[in-house]
């Protein structure tokens, strides 16, 4: 994290005799800038050396009282301010574990000196609080790397006074290797790409997008077909940043990609052949295939895994019967294309036995009000509130008070054992249900994170979560539709327009705001129809783009100008192995032929192939729990593990059936390529395959060929 002084502008904070010095307006910024309130110093959870300040000064009242009353007020010598501990420590006139924070002749020293001399006034929050932060420029565009720009930060206070706080504001880049921030030169373009600057001052934030264009000459935008509004928005951004999109992928690649993305399954060799031989115009043919896949049972399997992850469906929390019931509820919701707002509403307002109303299992996972609120905001709003439990969010507007106000919506939720063993009843408590603030134990009434354009009344009794559902799952909520649109998008591109998808905040802006707005509007216009959203996305040219790049988009990773390979998820991979090898899945304690995507939770097949390949344990609602990395244990498992070796050698498997059925060598090679890679081999691949088969025992060599294909990147990745 770079914290720098941006410009050597004159510090207006050096108090003049005419302006009264207050803690709020003048001293608190000094404490922040000097690092006193930082996490490693007095802003730590337990403070430092007996002195505690709020983290990054989020609570000036607390800090002021700490300074005034800790050590019995001995931090100030009002008769001789220069002998105050508050000045002697940071200037190291007495020993200070935090070292020298500023010199005795600095402006910071003078500010504090004058403040003590004036009698340590706190200031008037109605006047001395920053109301708004103005930054200039609003956007930085550099024609090539190596250029610089400066930033100016103006604080506007509640009394209307403005002050240039450039020197004291903190500016950080979210992608320093694209746009670096330096004290001397300001913002410097390091390489072609995009970054966002986050400007912070006294709890207020502002962002500045930075674009560094490709300096190469000769860019001429070549228009590609636009299938729908997605392509218009993507192209508009690409044109602006001088990136040329890749054309659409071929039919075989498209079929494999869209099958895996929509259903988690590989197309069968027969389906591949039929699709490739279909002479219908490509867009129409692909659209029909998309409709077919969305209507298939495998679609339900695949998306049930995703929602099972997000809702943490696991017998660890829900028991055996509960996990099957919850899975069935999720499956039915997906199969019936339940509108997303209704699905969320059912989860948040569910009551009664979790056996009778499986949506109530939502509350059995997190159980307490605070983690339930954190899960709710993270999953449905894409907002991470967890930091605000202990202090105001350091990089976002959310305050600790808001954390408890939002938690109060769930504070009445009670869980009690039901009559059947393992059954739990979710209900609204009738007494002692108020949320208490950790600071003083005062009752915190529920309040929405943001005011809605359509006001929702909050009842004064325990049935308050119904109001939360009304507010949260509404079209007017600025986060709700956007969060799911962004999340769904990420499932098809491997990256959200805002990424990570569950960390939406001002300092993490969308890479293409117009695109995200359009997706959000489309979703709300279609009453939260997620199938419509998916259908629109996968019909776009942007989704169907080839993985191959050109000279203009090779470095692009955020503008969706070409496809980016993604490793198959654990379940996709397991089911792909099974399908390619033509064997029956066989997991313990579920019926035979239950595929990996049909398993109820991560307890089935625990510590096996699926876990090695990153299946989440569903311990958290974060997308990050599912690993998409590639590791040595995975490589060893693929090369030496029983899963692959047993599958290729299965006596009823594909190889055995081909050989016993009298298939020719050419037929075997073609079938294995179709089964594993969803395409026919090219001429060279076919030739090498045939040569290998003819070089020894045919069955063994056919198994080897399949084994090699299953270990190839073409099999392991979605592209």
């Amino acid at each position, binding site marked *: 994290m770079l914290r720098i002084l941006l410009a050597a502008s004159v510090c207006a904070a050096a108090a003049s005799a005419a302006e009264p010095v207050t803690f709020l307006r003048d001293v608190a910024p000094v404490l922040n800038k000097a690092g006193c309130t930082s996490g490693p110093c007095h802003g730590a959870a337990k403070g430092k050396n007996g002195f505690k300040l709020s983290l990054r000064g989020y609570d000036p009242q607390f800090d002021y009282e700490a300074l005034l009353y800790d050590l019995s007020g001995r931090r100030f010598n009002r008769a001789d301010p220069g002998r105050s501990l508050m000045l002697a420590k940071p200037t190291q006139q007495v020993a200070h574990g935090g070292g020298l924070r500023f010199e005795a002749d600095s402006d910071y020293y003078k500010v504090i000196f004058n403040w003590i001399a004036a009698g340590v006034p706190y200031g008037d929050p109605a006047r001395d609080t920053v109301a708004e932060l103005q930054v200039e420029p609003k956007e930085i565009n550099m024609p090539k790397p190596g250029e610089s720009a400066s930033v100016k930060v103006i604080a506007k206070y509640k009394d209307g006074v403005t002050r240039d706080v450039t020197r004291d504001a903190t500016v950080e880049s979210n992608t320093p290797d694209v746009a670096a921030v330096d004290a001397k030169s300001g913002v410097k373009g390091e390489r072609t790409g995009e970054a966002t600057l986050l400007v912070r001052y006294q709890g207020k934030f502002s962002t500045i997008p930075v674009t560094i264009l490709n300096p190469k000459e000769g860019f001429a935008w070549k228009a590609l077909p636009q299938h729908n509004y997605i392509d218009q928005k993507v192209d508009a951004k690409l044109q602006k940043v001088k990136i040329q999109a890749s054309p659409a992928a071929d039919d075989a690649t498209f079929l494999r990609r869209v099958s895996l993305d929509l259903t988690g399954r590989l197309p069968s060799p027969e389906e591949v052949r039929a699709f490739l031989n279909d002479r219908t115009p490509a867009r129409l043919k692909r659209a029909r295939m998309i409709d077919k896949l969305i209507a298939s*049972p495998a679609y339900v399997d695949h998306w049930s895994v995703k929602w099972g992850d997000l809702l943490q469906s696991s*017998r*660890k929390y829900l*028991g*055996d*019967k509960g996990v*099957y*019931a919850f899975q*069935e509820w999720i499956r*039915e919701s997906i*199969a019936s294309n339940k509108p997303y707002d209704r699905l969320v509403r059912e989860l948040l307002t569910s*009551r*009664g*036995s979790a*056996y*009778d109303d499986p949506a109530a299992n939502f509350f059995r996972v997190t159980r307490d009000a605070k983690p339930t609120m954190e899960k709710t905001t993270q999953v449905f709003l894409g907002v991470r509130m967890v930091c605000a439990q202990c202090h105001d969010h350091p990089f976002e507007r959310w305050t600790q008070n808001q954390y408890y106000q939002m938690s109060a919506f769930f504070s009445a939720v*009670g869980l*009690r*054992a*039901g*009559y*059947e*063993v*393992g059954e739990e*009843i*979710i*209900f*609204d*408590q*009738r007494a002692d249900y108020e949320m208490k603030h950790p600071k003083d134990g005062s009752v915190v009434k529920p309040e929405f994170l943001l005011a809605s354009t359509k006001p929702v009344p909050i009842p004064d009794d325990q049935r308050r979560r119904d109001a939360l559902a009304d507010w949260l799952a509404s079209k007017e909520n600025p986060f709700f539709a956007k969060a799911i649109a962004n999340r769904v998008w990420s499932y098809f591109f491997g990256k959200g327009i805002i990424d990570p998808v569950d960390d939406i905040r001002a300092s993490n802006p969308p890479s293409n705001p117009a695109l995200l707005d359009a997706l959000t509007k489309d979703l709300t216009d279609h009453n939260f129809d997620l199938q419509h959203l998916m259908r629109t996305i996968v019909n776009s040219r942007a989704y169907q783009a080839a993985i191959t790049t050109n000279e203009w988009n090779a470095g692009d990773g955020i503008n969706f100008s070409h496809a980016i390979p993604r490793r198959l998820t654990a379940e996709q991979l397991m089911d792909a192995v099974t399908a390619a090898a033509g064997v029956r899945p066989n997991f*313990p*304690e*579920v*019926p*035979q*032929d239950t595929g990996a995507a049909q398993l109820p939770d991560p*307890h*089935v097949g*625990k510590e096996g192939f699926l876990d090695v390949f990153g299946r989440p344990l569903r311990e958290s609602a974060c997308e990050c729990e599912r690993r998409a990395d590639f590791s040595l244990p995975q490589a060893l498992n693929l090369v030496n593990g029983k899963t692959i070796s047993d599958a290729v050698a299965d006596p009823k498997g594909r190889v055995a059936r081909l050989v016993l059925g009298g298939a020719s060598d050419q037929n075997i090679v073609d079938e294995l390529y179709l089964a594993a890679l969803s395409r026919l081999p090219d001429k060279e691949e076919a030739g090498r395959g045939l040569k290998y088969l003819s070089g020894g025992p045919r069955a063994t060599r056919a198994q080897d060929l399949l084994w090699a294909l299953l270990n190839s990147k073409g099999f392991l990745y979605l592209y």
Partner: protein
Amino acid sequence: MRFALLTFIAGMAFAAPPVINDLQPRGAQKGRPFVLTLFGRELGDGAKVHSTLPATFTPMAPEKTGPMLEGRYASFLVEPKESLETGIYPIRVETPDGISNIQLFTVGSFPEIAEEESRPGSLANLNDGIEGAQALPSPPVTVNGVLRGPERDLFRISAKAGEKRVFEVEARRIGSAIDPVIRVLDQSGKMLARSEDAALLSLDARVELTFPREGYYYVEVRDARFSTQSASYYRLKTGAYSWADEIFPLGGQRGQQVEVAAGARKVTADLRHIDAKFRQTFLNLPDGATLPIPFAVGDNPEVTEPATAALALPVTVNGRIAKAGEIDEYSFDVKPGEGLTFRMEARELGTSKLMAVITVRDAKGTVLGRSGDEPLPEDFFNVNQSRTAGDPSVQVEIPRDVRTVKVSVEDLALRGGAGYGYRLHAGAGAQDFRLTMNVPYLNIPAGGSVAVPVTMERFGYQGDVHLRLVNAPKGLKAEGGYIVAGAPVKANARNPNSRGVLILSSEEGASFNASELRVEGVGKLPNGEEIVRAARGLGMLVNVAGATQQGSVDRQRPITAPWLALDLPAAATGPKPATLEVQMVSRRRMEEGDEIKFRWKWHPRDASIRLPKTVVAEMVGAGDVRLIDAQQDPKDRTTGTFLMTTTKLTRPAKYDVYVTGRLGMEGEGEEVVSRPISVEVEEVKALNAENTSGR
């Protein structure tokens, strides 16, 4: 080693009572004779069937014989009498060596067929998918099937467009450990209907649907957990028949006739001749296609909501939370100073989904008592209830000047509608208790002992209870049976003060006919009056497997049949290979409690018997007791010692101590129980290293 044991058991040839593991078939169509085969152990010559099924059971010669089959099965030609009604009937066998467990047999009204996969010698997983689905004949029909491990059974049916059909699975109601789920699928595998835990069906399932078009459809039956159970049978019933998803009221007063709404129909419950020991009967719906519906029987005068006037005690109020969020309220005339109990019956009846909250207030609205919104009592020891009780009760002492109380009833989660009926019992006495025996039946060995664990639910009564055998036949002696005083069972409290063990010992050579033993508990109220309650019997006990290799956190409630209103069926059986004895050797007073040394002693009937190295000991109902240092005597393998330590938290009282040992290999062999000894635990006052000699 296993061989040696078998040799030993065969060589010793001790008589063993019969056991029934399975029935084939599990049910039959009303009015038709059939062959019933019992599978199990010790079912050889002389086995007589005891059943409430009105039929004659004529033994048939075994089709197959051989040493491995001897006593393993017995077949009977069953000729039902005309009075036979649709329902569930217990089947028990008695031989000269004792009585068996009960298995339930079902009489239905549809033709019966067997699932192909469940036939002996059939291949497994024949009908686990749509491709292999077993075709069913035209309805109505009942299929007798079995779920072997984690599988699903699929059946193919053909239906016409617009045809309405009911699919119902009978499992838990008929004693199977399956918790069934039923799904109806179209040809593409798309689900059209699903049911799990249907109204009035316990954990069983039922769907009714109208088929959208003519063609094949598929019915899937599976267990809700894909669990593996020993009792894994089910009966899939399909046809066009009427059924009810609610009855109201849920019960009536003994001696009366009660009109009951069963769905849209009215039926009459005739309670005029219900024996006093029955707390439940069954209602048969007119067409007899569905199994009879449980119907509670009480002894209080009854009223049915609405009841606007103040009610006199005792009374049972039949009500229903008719819509979500509804709160019912009743007024009762009371006397200042009297103790009252308001007890809810709803979920435990099996005919209501209500998780009730009851609140008792005075006329000013002051809450005198409330129950149902706090965790319900859990009891680790209670086999019958398996941890969690179902319905709340409130005990109140009426304050001075209060002559009317209002009692409100609502659902914990503010639900309501069909299936949310209840019975609110209001009566005098703020102290009561309920006893349940945790064994369904006994075979008492000659010269040996058996344990009868009894669980106690306290309703305001916190005193001691002493269990006693009311109708002991000659030669049978009851000992022990102390349930010490205790605090109320609180949330998650594994309260030891709610359990007693009565030990029944048969004199050497004593013989008595099979009969029902009655156990009572006697408590003493603060005013000196005795309170006597009979212990309820389980009727039957079928364990339901819960834990799985996948890290299950569920345990399931065992299946019992208190509706059989059996006390404790018992019979004499032959002696066990050994008897067991326990004695107190010494007691040492420690700072924190006592350290008591005990000695166990085996008395084998044959010197060649292999004896276990240790035994299991229990100081019944004593909290904070540790058993340590159990060791076999190195010089005499028939004896050994162990220490029991008590602490300040062990309530001073008189406790029963007894030991059990298992002869044979792990999980097999015979459990032998000692006679109890009485041990007095005194209050820990000060360090006292005094030693006392054993008795």
